């Protein structure tokens, strides 16, 4: 019997752990973690271990299909008929050719980041010339964290420094305990941090996996994070007087003088913001090297320092006032603020590898939860401010920016720009990163997703189901005529109200997409292209180690994915399929220009117009270009991963960053005024209240619905580590876990609330939102806020192609009303807290 262990990268979710697969006689029989791979340090999760069951799923799609039933709908049988690759690609190329003179009629739903497909689909879309490229999965997650992090940290995401943090507050996230990038690495780091005494406080409506490991779980009413954060800031800045003045003076815009109109006082001529130097009592430009003590209190030149305005502003949010909003007792909040402020150790330093750095062993981390609200940006931003005022950003113990800077194999580094503030984020691939500073000038939109009316957002796809209902209202005289999509099930996970998504997809005359299995998105396809298992694929980007690796001084990495078993006869690699589509359209040269740029390929490694390549040759070129001739594809096939040491500068970029971080968002005023003019010209009604330089708490529609008695509960979504971000719902082993735990397929209801309604544990109930009404089974628990219903995962499948997952659990997103009133006007996040009724 031929037997071998093959190193590759897991593809069961976006993380991409290093794995070794035992292959016997061409059959994958076991998977284990690769102990040499820093991404997971040999550890695996349940999803990864269950990957073999995805590979041998009898319901996988292995040949191209076309629909024979012209009627498309959520519950329409497409009437699939097998076709040849040539017929499939000829049809797709002909449809694309039909709209090439008006390329904006193409919409590409590209999210599938376990491998290269994401980048290749986006490159095809850009070469074709459409602006409608959807590069993110969720209707909320990522909408705020990335734009905030790139202008206030420098990288793509954030992580608490688990190596040195002593006090970690997690808000709306299960970081290191149930979710997030580099999950299996940070889970070990989290365990070690807790073992050495780091205190974890979880603030979340749901007493989740993270809460179960925390020192303290504090339930909060959904959609009130702003109030909590502003109150914490008030206690720290005004009651306790704890903040890092030195950091604020020299590394933020805290000393920038602000006039009565909210704008910076600027030097005539240069236009540079001014500060007041307390040393010689003179007003100077922010970058004047003689400004040794820029004041953050007091006044000067007709203006006041931004920090003074912040302190004054947060004084409007004393804990006694916010207790009514958040339900967090004032005494609890004051204690948290004191513990957090004291743990931050303002003024302390530590030395690592001979380099002395500020030491701030306390931080606040947040992710999906605060973003998913009507005012998602302002729910989230003041949480980051808690770290900034402590100077706990990109220093040991504080909040760290993921993959923000590096020196090997290329150099990438965040840079300052407009007004001396952090403007250019760092990324190993030279691609435009999502950021909210300085934003773009709003204009009358030609894009179907109204991107032009969201000048501070990077994501826009949540608008598509809304605008397609009434294009004329937005001055749009065309419609999307074709959609290409990755195998991700966006219908269930990327939007809200399913009727709205159905209507949007029905409005698109032709849809072609990849499929692992026929999920609910594929039910709308005219052509289905089979997508190989990750154990049959080859990818240069294998997971999200380039975006969300573990932080700190541990080695960074690059890994490739190689096929460990032969794919089924006729299966093709998705990159080669996309390449052929580009070639059939005569776009290969433009397509390669973009890929060569994205992957930094230069001669002699650059892809050449007029040639098509096997994907293995492309990966070989990329590997040799990045890591030298000795690290070709053959080397990676043997070793799987290359470890890349990080020095202190790369691990803790804060002191080495030549740019200031914002505490005051002056540019929001400018963008708001510009937008006001555009929407006025268009005759639109538009809520501009979010265009403010200092955050205020503004209620979600669900908050008001509860207050006026129309509904009595708020439904929220939470993540499960064994189904999070994965292709796992149709996996029988994952299903077994979900069936054995009461927290997956059931909805969580507070025990006292349920009993008052006459609902017992395990009862069948109706869960009714303004968008839909679904049948669910109640799990009674004390581990949930009394005003909240918790819905886990993304279940609720009905596709015949997913017989294991079918009819189990709830699809949370289907509960969400989808209209402009539920869209954050800064980030485009769809409100993810929804008013509901629960009854038998």
């Amino acid at each position, binding site marked *: 019997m031929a037997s071998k262990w093959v190193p590759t990268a897991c593809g069961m979710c976006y993380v991409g752990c290093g794995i070794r697969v035992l292959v016997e006689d061409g059959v994958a029989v076991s998977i284990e973690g690769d102990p040499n791979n820093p991404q997971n340090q040999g550890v695996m999760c349940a999803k990864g271990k269950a990957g073999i069951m995805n590979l041998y799923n009898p319901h996988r799609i292995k040949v191209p299909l076309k629909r024979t039933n012209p009627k498309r709908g959520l519950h329409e049988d497409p009437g699939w008929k097998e076709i040849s690759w040539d017929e499939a690609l000829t049809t797709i190329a002909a449809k694309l050719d039909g709209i090439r*003179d*008006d*390329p*904006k009629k193409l919409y590409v739903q590209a999210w599938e*980041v376990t491998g290269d497909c994401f980048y290749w689909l*986006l490159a095809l*879309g*850009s*070469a*074709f*010339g*459409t*602006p409608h*490229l959807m*590069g*993110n*999965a*969720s209707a*909320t*997650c*990522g*909408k705020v*964290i*990335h734009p905030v992090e790139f202008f206030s940290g420098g990288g*793509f*995401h954030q992580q608490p420094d688990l190596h040195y943090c002593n006090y970690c507050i997690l808000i709306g996230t299960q970081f290191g305990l149930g979710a997030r990038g580099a999950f299996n690495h940070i889970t070990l780091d989290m365990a070690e941090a807790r073992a050495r005494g780091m205190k974890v406080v979880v603030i979340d409506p749901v007493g989740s996996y993270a809460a179960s490991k925390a020192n303290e779980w504090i339930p909060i009413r959904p959609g009130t994070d702003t109030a909590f954060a502003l109150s914490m800031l008030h206690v720290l800045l005004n009651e306790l007087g704890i903040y890092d003045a030195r950091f604020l003076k020299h590394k933020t815009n805290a000393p920038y003088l602000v006039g009565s109109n909210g704008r910076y006082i600027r030097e005539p001529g240069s236009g540079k913001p001014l500060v007041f130097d307390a040393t010689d009592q003179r007003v100077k430009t922010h970058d004047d090297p003689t400004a040794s003590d820029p004041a953050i209190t007091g006044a000067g030149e007709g203006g006041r320092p931004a920090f003074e305005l912040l302190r004054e502003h947060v004084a409007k949010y004393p804990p006694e006032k916010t207790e009514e909003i958040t339900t967090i007792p004032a005494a609890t909040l004051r204690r948290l603020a004191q513990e957090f402020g004291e743990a931050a150790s303002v003024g302390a330093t530590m030395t690592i590898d001979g380099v002395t750095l500020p030491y701030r062993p306390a931080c606040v981390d947040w992710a*999906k939860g605060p973003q998913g609200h009507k005012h998602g940006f302002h729910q989230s931003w003041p949480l980051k401010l808690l770290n900034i005022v402590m100077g706990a950003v990109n220093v040991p113990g504080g909040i760290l920016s993921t993959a923000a800077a590096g020196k090997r194999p290329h150099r990438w580094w965040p840079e300052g*720009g*407009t007004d001396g503030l952090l403007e*250019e984020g760092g*990324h190993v*691939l030279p*691609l*435009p*990163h*999502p*950021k909210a500073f*300085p934003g*773009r*000038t709003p*204009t*009358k939109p*030609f*894009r179907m997703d109204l991107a032009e009316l969201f000048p501070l957002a*990077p*994501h826009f796809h949540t608008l598509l189901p809304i605008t397609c209902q009434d294009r004329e209202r937005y001055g749009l005289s065309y419609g999307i005529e074709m959609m290409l999509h990755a195998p991700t099930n966006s219908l269930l996970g990327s939007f809200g109200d399913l009727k709205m998504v159905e209507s949007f997809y029905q409005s698109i005359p032709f849809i072609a997409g990849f499929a692992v299995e026929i999920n609910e998105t594929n039910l709308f396809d005219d052509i289905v292209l089979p997508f190989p298992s990750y154990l049959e694929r080859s990818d240069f980007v294998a997971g*999200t180690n380039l*975006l969300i690796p573990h932080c700190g001084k541990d080695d960074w990495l690059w890994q490739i994915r190689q096929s460990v078993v032969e794919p089924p006869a006729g299966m093709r690699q998705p990159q080669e399929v996309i390449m052929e589509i580009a070639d059939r359209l005569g776009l290969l040269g*433009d397509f390669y*220009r*973009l890929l060569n*740029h994205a992957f930094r390929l230069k001669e002699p490694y650059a892809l050449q117009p007029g040639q098509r390549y096997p994907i293995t040759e492309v990966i070989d070129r990329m590997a040799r270009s990045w890591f030298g001739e000795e690290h070709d594809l053959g080397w990676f096939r043997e070793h799987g991963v290359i470890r890349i040491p990080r020095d202190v500068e790369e691990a803790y970029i804060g002191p080495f960053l030549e740019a200031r971080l914002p505490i005051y968002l002056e540019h929001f005023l*400018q963008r708001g005024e510009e937008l006001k003019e555009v929407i006025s010209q268009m005759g639109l009604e538009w809520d501009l209240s979010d265009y403010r330089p200092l955050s205020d708490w503004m209620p979600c529609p669900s908050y008001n619905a509860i207050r006026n008695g129309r509904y009595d509960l708020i439904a929220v979504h939470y993540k499960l580590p064994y189904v999070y971000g994965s292709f796992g719902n149709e996996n029988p082993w994952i299903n077994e876990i979900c069936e054995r735990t009461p927290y997956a397929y059931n909805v969580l209801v507070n025990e006292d609330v349920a009993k008052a309604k006459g609902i017992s544990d395990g009862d069948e109930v109706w869960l009714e939102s303004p968008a839909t009404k679904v049948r669910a089974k109640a799990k009674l628990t004390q581990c949930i806020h009394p005003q909240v219903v918790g819905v886990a995962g993304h279940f609720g499948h009905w596709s015949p192609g997913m017989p294991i997952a079918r009819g189990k659990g709830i699809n949370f997103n289907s509960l969400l009303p989808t209209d402009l009133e539920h869209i954050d006007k800064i980030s485009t996040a769809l409100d993810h807290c929804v008013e509901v009724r629960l009854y038998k």
Partner: protein
Amino acid sequence: MAQPNQEENFMEEGNVAIINVKFMGDLRALLQQRAITLALPPGSTVGDLFASLCNSYGEPFTSRVFSGSGALQHYILVFLDGQNIKELGGLGARLGNGEVEIVMLPMFEGG
């Protein structure tokens, strides 16, 4: 959308640089053109080319390409004869008789 002049009046034949410009990404849809040919004075720079394009295409082009500070937006890529202008001096790079590709990419996203 306004269309650019193919040649400026002040230029005499033989005393111009012929520049082929190709648009990719959002700009292809915005301008409804894949490529144009422009005549510019010899010695013109990429910045001069953009000034000409802004003059021709107006505010919709200008507002998307430049940030408020007058710098190119971070999602705008410009290749001159296949080389990124960041490696050639940015907007000050000399055009020669160049092939220019101007790309407006989507913000690479996540979440």
